[in-house]
């Protein structure tokens, strides 16, 4: 189910040489592959202000800030062939899945509890499990209550777009400044293969007629959002043989209409999920196919590469899900928001980010000083903050960076099904799956690793080290690279 999102092949070539080059010289990260560390030059100040704390919109922010989704909007007005909201498994991570639905009042209790305990929280999203715009009364009630209590929380919704045009003005008044529309087609013929029906104006439409209405409403909604300066991200599900090549066309359309970011995600298809595609054997794309498509899309609307396709009730940093700590039965009856922890965290982050930018610059300079063409693929165990700070055995995912003569670039993440230290099935079996997930990686950086897993990784051709524990990711990679390729005078690292 959780495939690595990046092809091996791609990992040996930079995603975008030009962007990496730019990143290497500016000291920042390329905006296309890695969000950015400092404001990218081609980005307006007000846009940067909006996204710099949003983990889903800025790759850099996802090291520092957390999001939570509240499942207050279960009702949906369209059926998608890749979606089935009936089954839930707490260990399953895919959009549309939740363990419990909340009323707006319950959502309020949950958000305040999380804000008090997870200082990284910056974004509250409503991403279903149905459609946030269709189930509008609940979405609106939730946002109104919570923004009164926590005024600085960013509000965000995800929608299929059908009911979106009806609520754009209200979204603007409520200061919802991020909207995601799932757009899988701009051609109703293709749409008819993805959407069996829609429910619009009190009746059900099917086939091409349905897809045509949906398409028109999506484009209208996007144009209206753009006109009001609301940042819009487009999610597209890549369905091989149905809309894969067509997504190039989609990218063109949404770019023309002002979409800020285009996120192409692989179809998740499994008969056990009970979706139409799952049951009919429609396959999802391989990591290679996804990557090839993403590469073709570079240069159109900006791409997002760090998406984790999270649940509609996820809580925490993108790579983690702490939803199970905040189920209804664990929430206090009455809650009072205490802003102090979030404020303190923000101060630390502001300082850290400054340091991090400097450290990145130094690390990139160090890498460029090494006179070699060699490239390394480095997997990093991190629990946030942009540092190598997770134990190998606890890592739920590894962030993969490529380092070479052109600098250091984020290329994706590898999920780990079961953590080495917590696997209930015998640790050797678990370690095998971790090794599988790390295929193609040269070096693993982590805060701590035992001798036994280290030896087994070595046997599999992957070196692991905790020598750079708690350093900034780029600093650690830079030092590793310099050490690896024999830099005579080791450059000082900030």
């Amino acid at each position, binding site marked *: 189910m959780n495939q690595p999102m990046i092809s091996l092949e791609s990992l040996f070539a930079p995603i975008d040489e030009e962007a990496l080059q730019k990143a290497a010289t500016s000291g920042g990260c390329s905006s296309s592959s890695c969000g950015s560390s400092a404001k990218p030059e081609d980005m307006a100040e007000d846009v940067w202000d909006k996204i710099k704390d949003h983990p889903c919109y800025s790759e850099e922010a996802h090291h520092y800030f957390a999001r939570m989704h509240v499942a207050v909007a*279960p009702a949906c*007005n369209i059926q998608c062939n890749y979606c089935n*909201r009936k089954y839930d498994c707490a260990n399953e991570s895919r959009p549309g899945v939740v363990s419990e*639905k909340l009323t707006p009042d319950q959502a309020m209790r949950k958000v305040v509890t999380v804000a008090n305990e997870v200082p990284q929280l910056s974004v509250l999203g409503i991403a279903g499990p*149905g459609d946030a715009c269709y*189930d509008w*009364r609940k979405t609106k009630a939730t946002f109104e209550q919570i923004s009164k209590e926590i005024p600085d929380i960013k509000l965000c919704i995800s929608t299929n777009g059908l009911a979106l045009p009806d609520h754009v003005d209200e979204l603007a008044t409520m200061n919802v400044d991020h909207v995601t529309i799932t757009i899988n087609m701009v051609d109703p013929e293709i749409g008819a293969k993805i959407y069996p029906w829609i429910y619009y104006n*009190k*009746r*059900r439409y099917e086939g091409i007629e349905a897809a045509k209405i949906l398409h028109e409403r999506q484009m209208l909604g996007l144009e209206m959002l753009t006109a009001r300066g609301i940042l819009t991200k487009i999610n597209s599900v890549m369905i091989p043989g149905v809309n894969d090549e067509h997504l190039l066309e989609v990218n063109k359309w949404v770019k023309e209409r002002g979409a800020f970011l285009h996120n192409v995600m692989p179809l998740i298809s499994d008969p056990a999920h009970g979706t139409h595609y799952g049951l009919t054997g429609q396959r999802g794309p391989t990591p290679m196919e996804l990557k090839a498509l993403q590469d073709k899309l570079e240069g159109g609307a900006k791409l997002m590469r760090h998406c984790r396709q999270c649940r509609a009730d996820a809580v925490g940093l993108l790579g983690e899900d702490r939803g199970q700590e905040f189920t209804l039965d664990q929430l206090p009856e009455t809650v009072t928001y205490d802003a102090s922890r979030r404020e303190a965290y923000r101060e630390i982050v502001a300082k850290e980010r400054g340091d991090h930018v400097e450290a990145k610059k130094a690390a990139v300079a160090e890498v460029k000083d090494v006179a070699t063409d060699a490239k390394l693929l480095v997997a990093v165990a991190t629990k946030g903050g942009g540092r190598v700070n997770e134990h190998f055995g606890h890592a739920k995912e590894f962030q993969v960076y490529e380092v070479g003569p052109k600098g250091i670039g984020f290329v994706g993440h590898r999920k780990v099904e079961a953590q080495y230290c917590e696997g209930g099935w015998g640790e050797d079996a678990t370690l095998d799956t971790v090794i599988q997930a790390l295929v193609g990686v040269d070096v693993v950086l982590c805060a701590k690793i035992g001798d036994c897993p280290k030896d087994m990784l070595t046997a599999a051709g992957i070196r692991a080290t905790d020598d750079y524990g708690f350093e900034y990711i780029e600093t650690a990679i830079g030092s590793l690279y310099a050490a690896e390729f024999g830099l005579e005078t080791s450059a000082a690292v900030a």
Partner: protein
Amino acid sequence: MAFKIIASQCTSCGACEFECPSAAIRMKGETYIIDPAKCTECEGMDTQQCAAVCPVPKTCIKA
């Protein structure tokens, strides 16, 4: 004269709850139910509203 929801098929998405013109649908336990005393079978409307909005075919049917 009323509709009912086949509980084994209901996804509990809640879509029908606020489409029902008679406010006859509510959550009970794990699923939604139709109050037969309130359901009018959408008299005077073109289509049966709960069935039209329901994501699962043949789940809101005549009792």
